């Protein structure tokens, strides 16, 4: 082996050893740093928990210690607090929010919503949602037209957390513009709850008479159903009565099932006989959810209909199963495979 080759070999070997040592040192220092961070997080958590849940004197002392933090130490607490808030409720949550507000967290969150970086705007929206202050609604509504989807999504969720019904129209407008926000808007409206029911009913009524408003109408109907707003039954029935309402009728049928009022049974049985398979499925499921035995003869007729498609027949059999009693007797008399399937499911559920 020539001298030059031997030298190259030695240099390569030395470089490899150096790389292995560097990697080892890097890993060691990263592990140390992670251990230090974890210990510091654990110590901070202990102070936060004492502030929120400790005995009176202890708790006051911990709150004072947290408020006295400055600079990076306060930022660490603020970060920890914003992570904790969505995980807890009750007195502990209120106390944590009060601590943050006492040191201007709301103002900093507002400033974040105006930042050039979309990450900071998203963080601002998240923080405003966690703090849940109604004076943030204007800023959050403004973020619903942000060019970043992440910001729009977090602003929608934050509006749900704040729970102010004045933001309902803006949220439905956002879903109208941006189909990807549909689920977030629906969840946010449900979170606002009964307080937003009057706005949702009004919007649904307008959607019924406004072509092109099917999506926002469907969102309003679904939210009213999950909220369980009995006051929405007349407008939901009106939607089902309108044969030109298209997909809005599917959402209305589901909503009536969620609300669970027996007075919706006649209109649901009527639409169960229409030709739209999606509407048949929604009506069948809704009748099962309401569980009124008055629907049994109509469901039994529908089960005997040979032209009914697979999903629709399954929904009808499922409704008879959920009604129980007379519904189950009807399934036992039927020779439909869907009746047999529903009865088998009933046996499994009874055994569970």
């Amino acid at each position, binding site marked *: 082996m020539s001298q030059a080759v031997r030298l190259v070999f030695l240099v390569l070997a030395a470089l490899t050893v150096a790389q292995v040592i560097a990697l080892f040192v890097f890993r060691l220092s990263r592990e140390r740093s992670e251990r230090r961070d974890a210990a510091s*997080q*654990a110590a901070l*958590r*202990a102070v936060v*928990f004492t502030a*929120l*849940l*400790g005995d009176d004197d202890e708790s006051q002392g911990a709150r004072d210690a947290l408020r006295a933090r400055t600079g990076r130490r306060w930022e660490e607490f603020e970060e920890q607090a914003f*992570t*904790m808030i*969505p*995980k*807890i*409720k*009750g*007195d*502990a*949550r209120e106390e944590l929010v009060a601590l943050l507000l006492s040191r201007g967290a709301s103002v900093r969150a507002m400033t974040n919503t105006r930042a050039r970086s979309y990450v900071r705007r998203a963080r601002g929206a998240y923080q405003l949602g966690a703090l849940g202050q109604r004076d943030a609604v204007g800023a959050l509504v403004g973020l619903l037209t942000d060019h970043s989807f992440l910001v729009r999504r977090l602003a929608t969720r934050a509006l749900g957390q704040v729970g102010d019904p004045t933001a309902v129209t803006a949220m439905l407008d956002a879903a109208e513009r941006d189909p990807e926000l549909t689920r977030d808007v629906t969840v946010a409206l449900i979170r606002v709850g009964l307080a937003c029911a009057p706005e949702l009913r009004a919007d649904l009524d307008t959607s019924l008479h406004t072509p092109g408003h099917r999506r926002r109408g469907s969102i309003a109907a679904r939210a009213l159903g999950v909220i369980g707003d009995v006051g929405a039954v007349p407008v939901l029935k009106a939607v089902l009565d309108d044969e030109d309402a298209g997909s809005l009728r599917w959402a209305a049928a589901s909503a009536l099932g969620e609300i669970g009022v027996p007075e919706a049974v006649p209109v649901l049985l009527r639409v169960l006989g229409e030709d739209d398979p999606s509407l048949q499925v929604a009506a069948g499921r809704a009748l099962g959810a309401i569980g009124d035995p008055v629907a049994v003869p109509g469901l039994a007729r529908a089960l005997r209909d040979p032209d009914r498609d697979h999903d629709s027949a399954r929904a009808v059999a499922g409704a008879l199963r959920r009604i129980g009693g007379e519904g189950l007797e009807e399934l036992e008399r039927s020779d439909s495979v869907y009746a047999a399937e529903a009865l088998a499911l009933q046996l499994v559920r009874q055994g*569970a």
Partner: protein
Amino acid sequence: MVADDDADIRELVVFKLEQSGHDVRAVGDGAAAVEACQDDVPDLVILDVMMPGMGGLDACRALRHDPRLAETPVILLTARAQEMDIEQGFGAGADDYVVKPFSPRELSSRVAAVLQRRRG
């Protein structure tokens, strides 16, 4: 025994229960909870439903299949509050469930109530 993969929640529950006078052990997943319970039978187990590896429902079933642990009260901590999820929890053998986000005070009361019920 408390099992939750979220350190914030795990330590919060430990803090609150220790404050109420309980000795608490905490782990980060269902398998570790079952193992720890088999080593030393606890008075009560709190299991998060969604955990990596073995979740709370499977851990609860495993406890119920162990004759020494079959009667140990189990409270599930769950983010899923639908009727079906709750039914599943009771089907797995849980004694009670607490929906996340939760109030530490409420959790502590539920623990006291379940322990009292079991002690008869």
